[in-house]
């Protein structure tokens, strides 16, 4: 498995993501800069990390989503390459139309930075097979715009197809997101977006490793 981390001006979680991928796979990811339009063919997992791409001007992730590098990522996703977007990465994926819905300002209007609990709603995906359905995991969040919204009809379809992957559990919804949604996957099952930061909970030094399973699943470090 070869992974890649996207680097755009204003993204600031790229080094955490590189460290997580390196520690879990034993191999450093390549990095993809904003001007690149060709992603190497041997990349199996592309990760868009968190931060504030292009200052989050206009709407969070809106400018990044229209950069040529995102078109290149979209083409890879259409060929089946796995794409993971975390936090601003998730916002970029919805703005790019690679995932349904939108991420709006937190209902509290405050930036939230704390640990939440996530329920694994669907463990039968390339990103969550290390977990069990219904498992509660701990994960940090740090965002101002994580309030997921989608129209009712689309939501019903997503629920039927098992595309809601994580929900905030036990009253820990930090942002008012619809139906407590914390992470969703596309219909094909190869593009996952989530607001929480699993890369910040992968080893004892972090105080836990509940986030490790997402990378272990996506990198196929564990048996399918």
């Amino acid at each position, binding site marked *: 498995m070869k992974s890649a981390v996207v680097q755009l001006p204003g993204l600031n979680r790229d080094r955490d993501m590189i460290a997580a991928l390196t520690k879990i796979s034993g191999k450093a990811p390549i990095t993809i800069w904003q001007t690149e339009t060709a992603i190497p063919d041997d990349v199996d997992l592309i990760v868009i990390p968190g931060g504030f791409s292009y200052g989050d001007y*206009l*709407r969070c992730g*809106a400018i990044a989503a*229209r950069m040529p590098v995102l078109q290149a990522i979209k083409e890879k996703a259409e060929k089946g390459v796995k794409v993971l977007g975390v936090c601003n990465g998730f916002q970029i994926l*919805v*703005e790019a139309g690679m995932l*349904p*819905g*939108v991420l*709006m*300002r*937190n*209902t*509290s*209007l405050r930036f939230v930075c704390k640990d939440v609990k996530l329920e694994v709603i669907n463990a039968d995906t390339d990103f969550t097979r290390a977990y069990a359905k219904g498992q509660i995991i701990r994960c940090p969040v740090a965002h101002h715009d994580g*309030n997921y*919204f*989608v*129209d009712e009809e689309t939501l019903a379809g997503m629920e039927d197809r098992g595309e809601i992957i994580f929900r905030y559990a036990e009253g820990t919804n930090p942002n*008012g997101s619809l139906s407590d949604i914390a992470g969703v996957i596309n219909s094909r099952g190869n593009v996952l977006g989530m607001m929480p930061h699993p890369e910040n909970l992968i080893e004892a030094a972090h105080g836990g490793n509940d986030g490790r399973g997402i990378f272990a699943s996506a990198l196929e470090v564990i048996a399918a």
Partner: protein
Amino acid sequence: MIKARVTVTLKNGVLDPQGKAIEGALGSLGFEGVHQVRQGKVFDLEIDGTDKGQAEANLKTMCDKLLANTVIENYTIAID
């Protein structure tokens, strides 16, 4: 040159926490009877050329592609 104004507003039914906070702040300033405050965005643009029909068509594409997120937002275009 054509001058245009694009107004982007939240669709009905989409929660607007910022609008709610502004409504609360207006109330605390003593402005009573103010309801349904919704925050939006305004873009003023200058476009080369004189063909207003073409400009409007281009503006519509700009709105659909970038200026508005049509999942949650509506837009209107006004040309001088």
